């Protein structure tokens, strides 16, 4: 079963920019090692980091379906910073991976404990599935 683990970050520039050098290095090292580990275990499906939220736009379809873009809404408190999609044996395993990501080191090497939203990815029907049975 596949799960998407979404890492959210508070509004504004990524906090990491104001950390001391060795903390930034530790954080980057952790993230690279984390991706390598999930790749080696055969569980990583995809992982992407997103660019900073200050360039983000909200888009809606207008009357004729044309895109109407809007700046980021001020009331939005949190933004998606990146995600992992993992293919695991159980929901517990997805939670364990999420906890590991949440413990990524922050300032002073302390765990950040960022909230990681865990959602199961919908699957298509099994091959022998028919709606009539």
């Amino acid at each position: 079963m596949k799960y998407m683990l979404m890492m959210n970050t508070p509004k504004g520039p990524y906090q990491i920019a104001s950390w001391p050098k060795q903390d930034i290095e530790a954080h980057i090292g952790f993230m690279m090692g984390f991706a390598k580990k999930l790749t080696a275990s055969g569980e990583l499906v995809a992982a992407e980091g997103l660019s900073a939220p200050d360039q983000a736009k909200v888009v809606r379809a207008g009357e004729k379906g044309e895109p109407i873009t809007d700046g980021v809404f001020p009331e939005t408190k949190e933004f998606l910073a990146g995600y992992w999609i993992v293919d695991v044996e159980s929901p517990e395993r997805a939670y364990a991976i999420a906890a590991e990501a949440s413990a990524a080191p922050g300032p002073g090497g302390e765990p950040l404990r960022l909230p990681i939203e865990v959602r199961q990815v919908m699957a298509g029907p099994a091959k022998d599935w028919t709606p009539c049975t």
Partner: protein
Amino acid sequence: MADESTQLLLRDLTPLVLGAMIRRYRDFASCEDAVQEALVAAAGSWPARGIPHNPRAWLMTVATRRLTDQVRAETARRLREQLVVSLIPPEEQIALAVGHNDRDDTLDLYFMCCHPALTPASQIALTLRAVGGLTTLEIARAFLVPEATMAQRLSRAKQTIRDAGASFSDPTRDEQLARLGHVLRVLYLIFNEGYTASEGADLVRVDLSTEAIRVTRMLEQLLPDEPEVKGLLALMLLTDARRAARTGPSGELVPLDEQDRTCWDRAMIDDGTRLLHEALSSGAGSAYVVQAAIAALHDEAPSTEKTDWPQIVELYGVLLRTADNPMVRLSQAIAIGMAEGPHAGLAALEPLAGDRRIAESHRLDAARAHLLERAGDHEAAIAHYRRAAQRTTNTPERDYLLLHAARLAELVCQ
């Protein structure tokens, strides 16, 4: 599964076989499908039975048979009308094919793949497939997109070529030069894609820079008197020669001034320099040749300090005379900063802040940060490094900029 030498042989033969097929049967899309099937058949049977005496004729025979099957199939009614010639027995067709002008066929294949009706993404994919002989899966992996997406992109590209009515023809010299311009741009894009996206040690990814060099070298052999082709190949070699020194142990970027120059590939530099001199001796100074000359000046220098910066400033000036490009102006400002000091560099950057094409780019902030740091204004440098980190969309680059800002911030605190 075919071993590496068989794979490489198949890839070298792909444009030759496909070029000859298109020359005879005209329809790019069906010829391409047939050649792909022949390549798959070869990869399956050659390792066990040995490489045939004439591998190219073998591929032609099989591809022609597949094409004949396609034409005979009920669904290919429309094609059958176009391809009456396919009813000639394949053996006889092979006899006809031998002795035709291979050089022109392969060249026409490059032109067709880089047809101006195609989008750059399609030109790149089609060139890698039809000229480079890569599989759809390999191309998909190289661009980190699903295989089905890449398959669609390729089949749409082939449909576009069919709709545009593109065919092999005998272009005039001017037409050939214009088409060659498209081809060189596509090869340059492939090279850059490999150069900038080489993060991670993903062994299943085809190396796009190496592939671009291979395909450009084939082109250089087809057109040995074309200085622009030599210039592009030289530029690729002189840039790729620094690859090993360009990233650190965990994939982090190492800028030019901190690179271990003993890790640069001397043989590649020599090869690139030779090509550059050949291109220069013909008197032409196209954009690729000038960029190669700049790369050569870096490659020749024992250190950043001993680099011939005034000459580099001059060469950027030559580039600017052909086209006013803000990225070139930015590079020139950095070179001015090295030749005449950071304040001169900052002054040269000034006009770019009002240039909408680059004012919001992270590169402008990064260049300004670097010059401000050298000028001793650390506070301002930190702000610009952070702004650049905020704006870049490339992860290793962002990490590099963030760490640079943090290092300076520690200096300021002390």
